[in-house]
């Protein structure tokens, strides 16, 4: 690696576009959002203004966010995301294991089959799920043929979780695959050879050695689930809104931007806490890097 001082012009040329973009279209807007979360709408001539704000004058937005209804939304985001992530993990681990231990010529095809949906538009996938599970959808029609239903399968928490699993499963498969693929299988063989059962081998050797991939997968799934907005909106309906929907609502409908900003930062903090927990766990476990 070279010292930037030895190649100032090259360094500055290479570094500027990214830095500029990051500053103008990410850091400044986020900073602005941060400021706004401590602000309130200005009172101009005795009326609440729609465009002017009094900056840094209140913690009121955060206090208001602590109101029960919003805490419920945050809590719902936290636990539905947790369940969805767990389901993804339980499904993806055996699948990734199967892909890694399949015959070499099959591996790329099997992997592609599992992650191909990732390339299809998220909204289209959510819509596809919505249209087959709606009360007049294919699933209910099929059940009608054997005299069941129709059932209301959408607009509940399970539908949201199913949607999240559907959308984010590839995110769990990929890091697990790359970790398990790098795992030297003679570790597993040694464990079996030394008398451990398959289950014991899994918990004593495979799992701890692939933990970094598991953690990466959990983060890759959990974080976008936490801020989800489409899935809960389309599949869950208003009763199953999470904090993402609340933020959107404050901006597009209730028009209370400072409050929306505060909710956003609460979501952001929750995200960062998840990242910190990951860093702490990853720092302690010694496995195969994802």
């Amino acid at each position, binding site marked *: 690696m070279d010292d930037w001082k030895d190649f100032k012009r090259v360094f500055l040329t290479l570094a500027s576009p990214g830095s500029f973009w990051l500053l103008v279209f990410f850091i400044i807007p986020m900073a602005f959002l941060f400021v706004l979360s401590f602000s309130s709408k200005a009172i101009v001539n005795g009326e609440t203004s729609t465009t002017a704000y009094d900056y840094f004058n209140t913690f009121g937005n955060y206090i208001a966010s602590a109101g029960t209804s919003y805490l419920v939304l945050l809590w719902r985001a936290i636990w539905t995301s947790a369940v969805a992530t767990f389901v993804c993990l339980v499904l993806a681990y055996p699948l990734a294991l199967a892909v890694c231990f399949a015959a070499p010529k*099959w591996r790329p095809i099997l992997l592609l089959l599992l992650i191909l949906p990732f390339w299809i538009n998220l909204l289209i996938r959510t819509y596809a799920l919505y249209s087959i599970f709606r009360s007049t959808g294919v699933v209910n029609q099929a059940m009608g043929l054997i005299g069941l239903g129709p059932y209301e399968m959408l607009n509940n928490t399970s539908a949201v979780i199913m949607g999240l699993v559907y959308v984010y499963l590839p995110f769990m498969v990929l890091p697990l695959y790359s970790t398990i693929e790098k795992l030297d299988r003679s570790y597993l063989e040694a464990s079996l050879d030394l008398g451990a059962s398959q289950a014991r081998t899994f918990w004593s050797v495979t799992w701890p050695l692939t933990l970094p991939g598991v953690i990466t997968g959990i983060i890759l799934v959990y974080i976008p689930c936490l801020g989800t907005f489409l899935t809960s909106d389309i599949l869950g309906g208003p009763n199953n809104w999470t904090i993402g929907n609340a933020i959107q609502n404050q901006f597009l409908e209730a028009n209370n931007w400072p409050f929306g900003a505060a909710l956003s930062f609460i979501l952001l903090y929750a995200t960062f806490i998840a990242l910190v927990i990951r860093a702490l766990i990853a720092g302690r476990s010694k496995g195969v890097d994802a």
Partner: protein
Amino acid sequence: MNAALKSGQGPLEYARRPWIIILFGLVLVFLYAPIASLIVFSFNVDKSGVWHGFTVMNYVKSWHNDAIFQALTNSITIAILSTVFSTIFGAMTALTLWRFRFPFKNIYEGFVALPIVVPEICMGISLAMFFNYTGMMAGVRDWIWPFNLINIIFAHIAFCFPFVAVVVRARLQGFNRQLEEASKDLGATELQTFTNVLVPFMVPSLVAGGLLAFTLSLDDFVITLFSSGPGSVTFPVKIYGMVKRGVDMQINAASTVLIAITLAATLIAMKLQSPSKSGH
């Protein structure tokens, strides 16, 4: 799980365990059945969940539906432009991080990775406020196409280029700098070395990163929703509006077209990428 082994099958052949094969099959059905049904029903004559006959009218209608057509054109234009810029910026950022030591590098790296981890909705509303506050939201509204999409493009570049940077940097990590030295030893200038040695080495990651940026851009709904003005609707935003009004087979038809475009782009990029993988 101490059952006897099967003849010709070792204890680690998980891919041949019946329960894993069944699980694999069920997951594939779960992943593909909704999409398959979406495509099949795009040819259905009505919008019920029952097959009432084959038609291509949904395609014809959505082709002539100016709003859908415009949204699709917008989406693809935005995706292409933001892919070009994010690939360039991402590659430059990756080169910076790979090549140089500089003060506060760790912090800089952290900032570059931030758009990847920050929830889309947070980034979306911060950009919405930024564009509103600076007047850019209103300012570009009446600009001639495609300049009226410029806010969306700027926003897309901001969240796409860090992904490209990550992909390219991972590739650069595997570069043997002795190749650079060899090139200079053979008389090439710094610039010739860059274009003849380093750039060809980076190509697979540029393709992969570019493809990722293209998909992310085409896929994005949340950030686009917030950074688009009323006149500049993209395909996902348009579909969202239509879905909120109920199921419509025109959505299926247009979605099928978009699925075909993305899958074609993905497969082409994979083909392009595979012969040059030898540089690993």
